[in-house]
């Protein structure tokens, strides 16, 4: 069983439009954009990983905090996709994140993200108790996405420590302080989200050299492996056993139809192959194939194994300083 944690889940709303004029030139100008198509789905990094794995036949349980009517929609969507849900209900409404995709420019999405509903202090010990009960039976734990308001900034560190106490490896798939504060707890793998700040803690990750340096620093802290995306089609994996793996997808960005969730398909694909016994580097290659396949479809995730297998042909791996 794979346990995913999404403490700040979202109801993902997608709109496809002909054009996306973003500048208001005239005073009192109103811009009305009619969407050609829209879709709604449960979202959040951990949830997306759970949906991906469930579609591959992996038993998956999703945990986190849900609230209100949007929370009910998130849960119903998850259950319908074959994921077991074990959420703690809190006051307020689960957030809605909006993505607007202009035809022909889907690689430049407009994202509008809510902060999320605050988690009351009384809910935290209840969640931790529930998490411990679930984590002890998990093969892996995936902690994904932004922390909800009200949660301590070292919340992921606490969860990694609890999972480690039962010998369960953890993947931290998040950005900002949420992931850097978790490093001392020595998670199995970190996949920092560096899209907004292009930094991993106080380390810049703008170039491959900087990414390798940041990855090595994470390994020195005891992290098992570090996987960082750079540009839209490249990833760098740093691990003690396999050294540095450069993964590159030979795909023009103009073929991408929806980038949201592709990073989560990467983590889901990687984890699915780890469960099947692949090495970390080979699992990451499969994950990249899943990410590219997901980016090429309008749906958030590509769940078709044949499509993923086709995209793997576009992913090259160059391994240095490893076995």
């Amino acid at each position, binding site marked *: 069983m794979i346990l995913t944690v999404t403490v700040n889940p979202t109801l993902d709303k997608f709109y496809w439009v002909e054009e996306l004029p973003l500048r208001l030139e005239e005073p009192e100008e109103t811009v009305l954009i009619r969407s050609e198509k829209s879709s709604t789905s449960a979202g959040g990094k951990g949830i997306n990983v759970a949906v991906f794995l469930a579609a591959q036949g992996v038993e998956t*349980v999703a945990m986190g905090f849900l*609230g*209100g009517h949007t*929370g*009910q929609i998130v*849960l119903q969507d998850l*259950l319908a996709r*074959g*994921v*077991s*849900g*074990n*959420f703690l*209900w*809190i*006051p307020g409404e689960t957030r809605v994140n909006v993505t607007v995709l202009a035809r022909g420019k889907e690689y430049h999405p407009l994202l509008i993200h809510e902060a999320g509903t605050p988690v009351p202090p009384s809910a935290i010990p*209840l969640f931790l*108790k*529930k998490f411990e*009960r*679930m984590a002890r*039976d998990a093969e892996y734990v995936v902690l994904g996405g932004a922390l909800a308001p009200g949660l301590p900034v070292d919340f992921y560190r606490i969860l990694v420590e609890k999972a480690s106490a039962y010998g369960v490896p953890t993947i931290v798939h998040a950005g900002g302080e949420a992931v850097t504060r978790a490093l001392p707890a020595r998670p199995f793998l970190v996949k920092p989200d560096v899209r907004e700040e292009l930094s991993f803690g106080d380390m810049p990750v703008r170039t491959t050299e900087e990414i390798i340096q940041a990855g090595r620093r994470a390994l020195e802290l005891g992290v098992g492996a570090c996987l960082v995306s750079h540009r839209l089609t490249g990833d760098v994996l740093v691990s003690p056993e396999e050294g540095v793996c450069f993964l590159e997808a030979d795909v023009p960005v103009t073929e991408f139809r929806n980038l949201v969730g592709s990073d989560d398909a990467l983590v889901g694909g990687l984890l699915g192959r780890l469960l099947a016994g692949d090495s970390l580097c080979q699992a990451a290659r499969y994950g990249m194939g899943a990410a590219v396949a997901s980016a090429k479809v309008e749906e958030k995730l590509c769940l078709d194994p044949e499509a993923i297998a086709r995209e793997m042909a576009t992913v090259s791996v160059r391994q240095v300083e490893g076995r």
Partner: protein
Amino acid sequence: MKVRDLMRRDLTAVEVDTPVAQVIYLLHQSGLPSLPVVDEQGKVVGVVAERDLMRAILPGYVDMLVSTSFLPSLNQLSRKLQEIGGLPISQFMVRPVVSVRPEDSDLHVADLLIRKGLRQVPVIDERGRLLGTVRRIDVLEGLGKAR
């Protein structure tokens, strides 16, 4: 059809020491008619429904009356709820647990839900751990889709 084809894999549950007030909150927020009560191993050890908590706050003498419509409320219910709000749910849960297994038939679970007057029943594994629940509407909807 089997229970596994009809069940919801919603693992929302409460622990034996969860206070009554928190359980009421969860019942309301989740929209579920009842909640499984689990121990530290995730084993279902009881079930608590809205009906059980409502029963707990009603004064005992109502059983002797045909109707209470003539009686003033006197805030008895809210006072009683305040009284029990901090108590662990283990004092109000129903045991033994009526449950089903994933391999049980649709006929069995439907009969159980009606025969026992239940709106929902937990689905457990061979170790008694919660796998999900089946509500009456899940049976009806599942059977309808299968046609």
